[in-house]
């Protein structure tokens, strides 16, 4: 009889030991597994931060491909330069709109070859665009407004539009990679989106070398077209992308020099940058990182009281973004402009509208806004009740394990509570949260699918997209309905950026956004990028003379110029 309790005691002691051991074991054990010794260190670039699972597919058509599939292997016609806010010809030599904006003509570069030595021709471009006629292909909606595509000769492709959405088209041009027709045409319609494409044949500077559960290895290819055409040469012979197990592990790898570029959010990195850990970032001073997207507080406007604009306004006024920026992030992010437009779009922000209708943190003003709109504390619990006198109780949900957002959500809830709004932060499983967001079954949540792009149109499309469906997959999670705003968004997509109407349309949208508050912009999430100079130097930085490309391996960032970062790096040994 005695033995059982003793046994249980021993068991629990073991559990305790295991619990405490976890702390130490984490970094040590997984660190060892990443000793990639088989590639010469001074020719190899080790990266991490984009892959969260083993590489399983190299199909550039559907998201989920191994890091670098689009960017290093498959390339788009243009890339976007976020510094100058303009498209740069990449596979294309040039692209031109006709005078009436109805047709667009792309001229391909001469001498571009696939990695199997076959030439890249206008047929490949036509084939890739026409893949959009398959419903399962992500860009299938292109064919709602594109009428036809025609290869007029080996190097010329002509696109004819039924509805010339200039902004949306330019977005398509740099976000989608061209695939070789001679390989893909033998695949069935279903295969196009489900094929793993194990031996990717692309036009880019790298080819498949190897992959394992914990890494993706690319090898430099001889005779990349840009070496002649643009005088660009990628420096690393090998690019090894390490699959993330956790951000803390990445921090350990980086500080021990086994990682050159980490695009992970490294918790507590602010301490690292202040200390002497030899870790570099884009800016030497706060905010250290470039801004990648805007973190938004999304109210579900189909539910009361979030359907009341006064309530949303009061909520916005109750949030102390400064505390999130300084306390939670240690100044590695910046507070957002009330319009939510990223810093790269600063020139489009209408300062007059912002100063007249923008919001700032002010708990007392939030209380006053609530009182004026009829939200009063009738039962004396310190929290306001809705207009009918019923207690308000709202949940702000953030995925469990997203540590920075969890902490930020706590700060938001705290601020709201101080203003008399009963909001609590909760942390459900990430998959459960995805379902809730898609189906509109939530009160409040945080979302940041508002990345840098060629045009603020993507941001306003994200805010105002209509019609609101039962399932909202990528935009308008607030389920906010405003026909006038949606028409402006559509108008914006048809307006070339050179047209004066472009700026005025954006200004009108800002006015609607600031008075209606369909979503509340909070802070700019950083383009997390930490690098060490143990093997490679000349990283992008604000310093004079340093490259200004985005220092990121995230998917979709290569097309925003990150690919050029690889051409600027210099190996340490040859310095």
């Amino acid at each position, binding site marked *: 009889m005695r033995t059982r309790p003793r046994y249980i005691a021993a068991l629990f002691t073991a559990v305790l030991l295991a619990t405490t051991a976890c*702390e130490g074991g984490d970094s040590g054990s997984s660190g060892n597994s990443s000793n990639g010794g088989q590639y010469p260190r001074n020719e190899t670039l080790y990266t991490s931060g984009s892959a969260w699972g083993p590489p399983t597919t190299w199909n550039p058509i559907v998201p989920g491909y191994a890091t670098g599939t689009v960017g290093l292997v498959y390339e788009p016609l243009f890339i976007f330069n976020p510094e100058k806010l303009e498209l740069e010809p990449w596979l294309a030599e040039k692209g031109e709109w006709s005078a009436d904006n109805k047709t667009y003509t792309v001229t391909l570069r001469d001498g571009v070859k696939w990695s199997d030595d076959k030439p890249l021709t206008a047929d490949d471009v036509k084939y890739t665009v026409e893949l959009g006629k398959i419903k399962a292909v992500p860009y299938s909606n292109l064919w709602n407004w594109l009428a036809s595509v025609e290869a007029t000769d080996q190097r010329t492709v002509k696109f004819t539009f039924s509805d010339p959405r200039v902004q949306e088209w330019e977005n398509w041009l740099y976000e989608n990679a061209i695939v070789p027709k001679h390989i893909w045409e033998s695949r069935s319609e279903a295969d196009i989106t489900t094929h793993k494409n194990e031996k990717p044949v692309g036009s880019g500077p790298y080819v498949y070398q190897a992959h394992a559960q914990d890494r993706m290895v690319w090898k430099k290819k001889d005779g990349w077209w840009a070496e002649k055409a643009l005088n660009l040469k990628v420096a690393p012979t090998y690019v090894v992308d390490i699959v993330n197990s956790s951000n803390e592990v990445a921090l350990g790898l980086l500080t021990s020099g086994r990682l050159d570029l980490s695009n992970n959010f*490294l918790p507590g990195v602010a*301490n*690292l940058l202040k200390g002497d850990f030899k870790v570099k970032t884009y800016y030497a001073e706060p905010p250290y990182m470039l801004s990648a997207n805007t973190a938004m507080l999304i109210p579900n406007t189909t539910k009361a009281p979030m359907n009341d604009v006064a309530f949303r306004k009061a909520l916005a006024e109750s949030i102390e973004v400064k505390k999130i920026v300084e306390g939670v992030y240690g100044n590695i992010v910046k507070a957002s402009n009330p319009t939510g437009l990223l810093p790269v779009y600063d020139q489009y922000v209408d300062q007059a509208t912002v100063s007249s209708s923008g919001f700032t943190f002010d708990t007392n003003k939030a209380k006053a806004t609530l009182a004026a709109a009829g939200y009063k504390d009738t039962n004396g619990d310190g929290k306001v009740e809705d207009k009918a006198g019923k207690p308000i109780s709202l949940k702000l949900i953030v995925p469990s394990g997203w540590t920075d957002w969890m902490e930020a959500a706590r700060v938001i809830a705290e601020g709201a509570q101080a203003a008399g709004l009963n909001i609590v932060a909760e942390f459900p499983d990430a998959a459960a949260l995805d379902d809730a967001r898609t189906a509109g079954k939530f009160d409040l949540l945080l979302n940041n699918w508002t990345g840098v792009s060629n045009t603020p149109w993507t941001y306003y499309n994200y805010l105002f997209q209509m019609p609101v469906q039962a399932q909202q997959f990528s935009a308008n999670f607030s389920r906010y309905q405003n026909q006038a705003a949606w028409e402006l968004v559509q108008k914006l997509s048809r307006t070339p950026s050179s047209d004066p109407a472009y700026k005025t349309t954006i200004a009108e949208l800002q006015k609607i956004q600031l008075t209606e508050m369909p979503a509340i912009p909070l802070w700019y999430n950083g383009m997390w990028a930490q690098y060490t100079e143990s093997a490679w130097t000349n990283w992008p930085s604000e310093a004079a003379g340093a490259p200004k490309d985005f220092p990121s391996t995230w998917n979709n960032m290569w097309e925003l110029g990150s690919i050029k970062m690889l051409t600027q790096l210099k190996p340490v040994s040859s310095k």
Partner: protein
Amino acid sequence: MSDLAPAAREEAAPAAGGEAVSAPAVPVAAGPVAAAQPGARRTRDALHFALRNKKVVGGGIVVLAFLALGLIAPLFYDYGHSEYVGPQSSGPSGEYWFGTTTFGQDVFLQFVHGIRSTFLVGLLGGGLAALIGMTIGFVAGYVGGLVDEALNMLTNIVLVLPALAVLIILHTYIGITSVPSQALFIGIFSWPWVARAVRAQTFSLRTRDFVDLARLSGMGSGAIIRREIAPNMSSYLFMTFILLFGGSVLFAATLDFIGLGPTGVMSLGLMMNNAVHWSALQLGLWWWFLPPGLGITAIVGALYIMNVGLDEVFNPKLREM
């Protein structure tokens, strides 16, 4: 002769009957009086030996000191444990005794709040598990037959359930958002070994003469369990509770550490969870994760040492004096 009574649960105890006879044999009105005397004496004796047992006294002092710290210390602060009050990531100092977190929260304040949650989850979780386990054990052991079979089956089923896996799933679907609800789930999964042990003890006790006598005198089953059987194993039940208390504390710490903790409150496991998530180890913020780790170890360790000491107190064979 009542000295032998605590040992009754161990041995066939032919002598134990003598003590027990006095209680049930007398008329109901006199019952409590007669029963109270040996009971009081037993308590006095136990106390006598307990206060001379270094393990019990030492363990008790540590546990009580932590309890007092958890209850009193938070009263001296006019800010909350999650508020950003100090400089970020600074080491222990006169102002912030255990230093501050990455965000500038006071680690000492979090620690004392964490102790509160620790005791609360131990008390509620351990208490609930003890209640369920003992009830099922007594009923199964005393009633026997089909009831025993059924309860035994239930016990065995819960015994083989992988509690951690079930709790992770429960957390996903229901969400464990407060310390009491966490304690509830822990309690529901940690009683089976108690039920089995108590059932076995009850089995052995229910065939004793004094129990038969009580039955003959017309006492109900509930009253017999409460007044005849349970008191004869009270020391064992008490020690069981201590083990369950410690077990609940550890279980809660495990859950909190892997991120299934309650929201809105602070616990020692959550502190360690936060410390790991914010790279306290890599960045050398040892003051963030050492206090909660040591706190849990100290509390649970002290409880177990106390338990070993109590064993010696209640069981004369183990006494070293």
